[in-house]
């Protein structure tokens, strides 16, 4: 059995780890609340933009824009959203892995990562990471999303890439985060209109939705699509940040619980060892006294 001193030392060491994990849990919990509020306030804009785009696409069927035209795919860009920091369970790995599978399947990749963790993942696998955004994932701002959006649109318009995928973690509930992969460029026209139809509310009776455009549909479209993409990226960033904090909360909570278990176990061991030592001492004293008495 381990000596009392070494058990005592382990109890203390687990205890201080526990203090850290507990503090991280609390910090993550408050950041989670903030991120969640941000997500809630980001949603209306995204939904409204989506709505406008849908009616735009629906109202002008013959619209042609490079953003919705598919072309033969040679190079593919991936925007992978992960965290900058670890200690959040499988959050970073899951996103990176899902993206990694897609990258392996597509080849000719150009990877844009948000967060250091995804960058490291792809660097280690010798994949082409062309750009990394740091310090964004925890508290994303719309400006960050805009920068990323403009960057990938430049790539797309310059024909450096023919497709752009966005990989991020979507927030279902506190315990359920799923990695989602969305093709953001070129936009899928059918899916856009299809959404509008399945939504139901977009259709007001049988009146055909005729829309007037100012200045004209083409110009409007050219202006709105980039906004839409940026908004989408912003939504994904915010959602991923909620997931990151949520994942960190859960994993730190687990760590705190585990350390409590460990401390209990070690305390039991310690008490046993202490009792054993006392028993032994008594035996020794009794033995000694007996030996003296015999003389």
């Amino acid at each position, binding site marked *: 059995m381990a000596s009392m001193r070494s058990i005592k030392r382990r109890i203390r060491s687990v205890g201080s780890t526990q203090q850290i994990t507990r503090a991280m849990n609390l910090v993550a919990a408050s950041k989670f609340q903030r991120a969640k509020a*941000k997500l809630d*306030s*980001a949603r*209306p*804009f*995204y939904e*409204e*933009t989506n*709505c*406008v785009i849908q*009616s*735009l696409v629906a109202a002008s069927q013959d619209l042609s824009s490079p953003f919705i035209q598919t072309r033969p795919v040679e190079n593919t860009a991936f925007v992978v959203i992960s965290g900058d920091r670890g200690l959040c369970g499988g959050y970073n790995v899951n996103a990176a892995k899902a993206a990694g599978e897609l990258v392996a399947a597509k080849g000719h990749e150009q990877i844009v990562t948000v967060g250091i963790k995804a960058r490291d993942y792809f660097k280690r696998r010798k994949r082409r990471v062309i750009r990394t955004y740091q310090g964004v994932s925890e508290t994303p701002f*719309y400006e960050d*999303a*805009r920068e990323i959006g403009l960057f990938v649109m430049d790539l797309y318009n310059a024909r450096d890439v023919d497709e752009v995928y966005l990989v991020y973690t979507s927030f279902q509930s506190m315990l359920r985060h799923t990695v989602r992969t969305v093709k953001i460029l070129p936009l899928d026209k059918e899916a856009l209109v299809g959404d509008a139809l399945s939504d139901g509310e977009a259709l*007001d009776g049988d009146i055909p*939705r*005729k*829309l*007037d*455009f*100012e*200045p004209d549909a083409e*110009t*409007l479209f050219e*202006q*709105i699509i980039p*906004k839409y993409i940026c*908004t989408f990226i*912003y939504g994904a960033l915010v959602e991923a940040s909620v997931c990151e904090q949520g994942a960190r909360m859960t994993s730190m909570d687990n760590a705190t619980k585990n350390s409590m278990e460990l401390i209990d176990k070690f305390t039991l061991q310690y008490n046993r060892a202490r009792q054993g030592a006392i028993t032994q001492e008594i035996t020794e004293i009794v033995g000694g006294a007996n030996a003296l008495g015999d003389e």
Partner: protein
Amino acid sequence: MASQKIHLRVVTPVQILFDEDVDMIVLRGAEGDMGILPGHERRAALLGYGTLRIFQAGKEEGKLAVLGGFAEIADGHVTVLSDAAEWPDKIDKSRAEAAKKRAEQRILQKDSDVDMQRAELALRRALVRIEVSSYPLIGARNH
């Protein structure tokens, strides 16, 4: 029968700025000011940098600085989607002044075409912000 009010929603990526029924709206489209009354035809319009004016009960209720974006007008409601829209009291006037100076300097220096365009846009944004920030906040908006 068209209702006598029109529902206006002003939404930015970070918040909903306005969400109420109003009498009339004047907004700055890409091709000039546009007044919108109840029963306006369906229209999607690109917005320029300018002031969005809200009229309620025959008088002006409030002004907003709207910096780009677009508006959808349909069936008695108007949705203004903008990257940046601000109430007069939320505008940092000194920052706008500084941005104006910076942009003016850039225009004077005449670096390259791209920079010129960006500087001009920045200047226009700053001018709108300065203009709107000088307006009082009419009506007690709960924002």
